[in-house]
């Protein structure tokens, strides 16, 4: 398979060969996946004689794997393209730490998607985590990177441990770890419940569900930009694949509360993620938190699909699952685009701090235009692709009242409000991002001196941007491509019970009958705006005079003389409205006394509730335990012998008791 072909490339010297190779291999894999989906999505199986001697490595590519293979490899293509340009711009720091591990990372992700037994799955999962960990460590001299990498390793180990336990639980009845066997033997209710929770913890920590998201905003920004794009846009989706595979495929008939739990966590993740993003001043951290928000939306869609599947309404479940898969594709596209933009800005100005950027639309026009497409797509503006995903999700939510359980009915209404809130806050976040970085005037000398980046990097950005527009206007062919996967997971498709419809309408089946047509909307918008421009420029005036803006007298070339809004000032109303309760955000003014000449200082303090409420107590508990256990280091020989003797006696007693 293509995966093994990618893994064979290990040349550390010439970046062109490496990136070209990965791009080629990914193209092949993506085309293969697309063809399989278009052809109906039959499964391909392969048993390799590697791995443990009594469990060979089972590999299987069915429709669901094909969808995610498409996503992963397409992300790989764009990242390789961008990475090539990025490597040429940063040649000194780039080659050694990044090049050998990048193909391994891609290979790892591909292998997870085709694994068909628990052992192969876990090995590939660890492989993927380790490869990305090494990539995170690429700037290993900075202390912040070291901290990020350490935290990432701990959380990844925790995730793998949870997944290990989950698979162990699911396979206990018969001892066979292959997915086919797990699928055939339905687990008991308690085993299934525990398995669900463990999978959510394990895959959720990789995807970034609150409160297990804490490693994401530290680790994703530390890697180079194309790797960040892959980690945020693609690796999180591999975690989503794990969730879908276990919850929809391996566990058989779902219980209604599984979906409820997922929706609850998804709603919290979505709102918290975007609120965190609004507090950030580092461009890449902002994008990482925005990933958390989008993962929350995807998890909500998955939860909805589970709930509808449990209530035996498979067509609506297919609608919700289609919304989830569409959001997976869309997010990988526009998040990659935005991370590439961040990489471009970093290359051009050398800084990631929003408060040092500004006015880049004049210095980097192509990047600015592509960034506008990305920002508009992620804020769910029609007729781009983000809106289609949100529209489908809302259609699925609007079917919620048809469910029998009361708590689900009311819960879905609350989740709907949370999704709407998260979407509106995301728009605010990206207005802030784009307005501070690209619009306005430069806030520092480096922003003033930025130059447009190279052609390779620009090409790497153009491809996702074009797809954002294309998928927004014509989403139905893509959803048709998902249908084999949907049929496999929920045994229905979202367009069932509807008569034939043309490829440019989106009219899914739903108890709420609706349709959306992005193409006509785009055409009408184009028509109306051209009419407008023509009429106004012909009939009214078209004269322009240039002048100096009035900013209460603050003007001049020195950035410090201009009173512009900074990133933190932009988010101040939202920080005050939401942040004061959630983050204990306080704005403190330190005014000098009359007569003092020092300037006034405005400081913003906020705390991260996930750290203060969950992780810091855990760390404290671990430290306390370690201190208590420290006494074991300093005992006499007699005490050690006593310990061993006691352990032996206890074991013998256990054997005696169980033998009876």
């Amino acid at each position, binding site marked *: 398979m293509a995966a093994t072909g990618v893994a064979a490339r290990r040349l550390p010297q010439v970046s062109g060969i490496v990136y070209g190779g990965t791009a080629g291999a990914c193209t092949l894999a993506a085309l293969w996946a697309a063809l399989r989906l278009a052809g109906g999505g039959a499964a391909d199986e392969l048993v390799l004689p590697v791995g443990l001697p009594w469990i060979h490595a089972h590999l299987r590519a069915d429709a669901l794997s094909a969808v995610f293979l498409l996503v992963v490899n397409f992300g790989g293509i764009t990242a390789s393209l961008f990475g090539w340009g990025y490597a040429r711009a940063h040649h000194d720091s780039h080659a050694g730490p990044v090049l050998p591990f990048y193909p391994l990372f891609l290979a790892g992700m591909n292998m997870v998607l085709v694994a068909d037994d628990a052992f192969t799955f876990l090995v590939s999962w660890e492989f993927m985590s380790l490869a990305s960990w090494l990539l995170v460590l690429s700037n290993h001299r900075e202390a912040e990177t070291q901290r990020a990498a350490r935290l990432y390793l701990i959380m990844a180990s925790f995730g793998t441990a949870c997944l290990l336990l989950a698979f162990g639980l699911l396979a206990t009845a018969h001892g066979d770890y292959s997915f086919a066997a797990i699928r055939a033997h339905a687990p008991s209710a308690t085993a299934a419940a525990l398995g669900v929770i463990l999978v959510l913890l394990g895959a959720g920590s990789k995807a970034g569900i609150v409160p297990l998201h804490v490693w994401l905003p530290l680790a994703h920004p530390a890697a180079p930009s194309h790797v960040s794009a892959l980690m945020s846009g693609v690796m999180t989706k591999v975690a989503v694949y794990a969730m879908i595979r276990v919850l929809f495929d391996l566990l058989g008939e779902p219980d209604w509360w599984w979906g409820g739990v997922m929706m609850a966590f998804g709603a919290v993740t979505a709102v918290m993620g975007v609120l965190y993003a609004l507090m950030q001043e580092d461009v890449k951290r902002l994008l990482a938190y925005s990933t958390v928000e989008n993962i929350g939306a995807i998890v909500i869609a998955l939860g909805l699909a589970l709930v509808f599947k449990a209530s035996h309404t498979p067509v609506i479940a297919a609608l919700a699952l289609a919304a989830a898969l569409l959001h997976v594709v869309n997010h990988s596209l526009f998040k990659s685009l935005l991370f590439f933009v961040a990489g471009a800005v970093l290359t051009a100005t050398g800084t990631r701090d929003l408060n040092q950027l500004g006015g880049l639309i004049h210095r980097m026009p192509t990047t600015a235009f592509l960034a506008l497409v990305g920002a508009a797509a992620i804020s769910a503006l029609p007729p781009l692709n983000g809106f289609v995903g949100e529209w489908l999700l809302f259609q699925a939510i609007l079917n919620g009242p048809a469910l029998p359980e*009361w708590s689900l009915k*009311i819960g879905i209404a609350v989740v709907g409000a949370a999704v709407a809130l998260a979407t509106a806050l995301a728009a605010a976040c990206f207005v802030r991002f784009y307005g501070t970085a690209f619009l306005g005037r430069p806030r520092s000398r480096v922003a003033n001196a930025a130059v447009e980046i190279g052609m390779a990097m620009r090409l790497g950005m153009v491809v996702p941007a074009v797809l954002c527009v294309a998928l927004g206007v014509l989403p139905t062919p893509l959803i048709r491509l998902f249908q084999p996967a949907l049929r496999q997971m929920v045994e229905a498709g979202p367009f069932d019970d509807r008569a034939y419809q043309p490829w440019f309408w989106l009219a899914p089946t739903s108890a709420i009958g609706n349709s959306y047509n992005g193409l006509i909307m785009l055409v009408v918008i184009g028509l109306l705006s051209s009419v407008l421009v023509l009429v106004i420029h012909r009939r009214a005036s078209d004269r322009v005079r240039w002048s100096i803006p009035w900013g209460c007298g603050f003007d001049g070339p020195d950035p410090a003389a201009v009173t512009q809004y900074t990133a933190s000032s932009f988010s101040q109303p939202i920080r005050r409205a939401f942040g*004061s*309760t959630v983050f204990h955000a306080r704005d403190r003014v330190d005014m000098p006394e009359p007569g003092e000449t020092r300037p006034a200082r405005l400081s913003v303090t906020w705390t991260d509730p996930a750290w203060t409420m969950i992780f810091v107590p855990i760390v404290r508990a671990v430290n306390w335990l370690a201190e208590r256990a420290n006494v074991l280091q300093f005992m006499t020989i007699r005490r050690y012998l006593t310990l061993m003797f006691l352990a032996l006696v206890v074991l013998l007693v256990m054997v005696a008791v169980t033998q009876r």
Partner: protein
Amino acid sequence: MIDLGYDAAHMLGAVVLLMSFALLYQRRLFSLLHVFTLQALALSATAAWQAFSHDEPHLYITALLTLVLKAIVIPVVLHRIIVKMNIHRTIEPALGIGLTMVAGVSLVTLSILLVLPVTEDATALTRENLALSLSVVLLGLLMMISRRNAVSQVVGFMSIENGLILAAVGVAGMPLVVEMSVAFSVMVAFIIFGIFLFHIRERFDTLDMQKIESFRGESD
């Protein structure tokens, strides 16, 4: 087909609940009293409508009692107390107003989740009235615990009473005796509150409960 009687009763009951929410939202004492007046008016309208549509004339008396006592007498007297004792006119909530409103909606959801599955065999109107009344009672309690000013705690107590009367009005066949006792207890509670407030004010020169808390444990 529209059942106007059902819809109107439901609408009026929901207006009472809406006024409970509005009570939680207020920051100034005088507007609090105005909203309380509106709630009492809605309540007496509910009682009158129930009397009309279910042909129970004693509910007219309930309506009249509520109108006179709770919509006119009590607000006027409270108004005069506020003016005379020069009480601080703004209310500082203990939680933020946003959090209080979110708690309010959660309480309404809780009462719906409680009442509706349990009372499957009663008529639709009774069930919904019970859910609404329970919500009003819970919101009144929320108001009492989330305010520091003693006057607003009195108003919260009154709105709990309103919720109870709403429940009683919705159920068919409540005798007049109960209403008399309810009205009497309201009046008694009110007198006690008035004296109480007056004494507190005299003694501590303030009606802010937080400041008064700090005096606990001191002897005469």
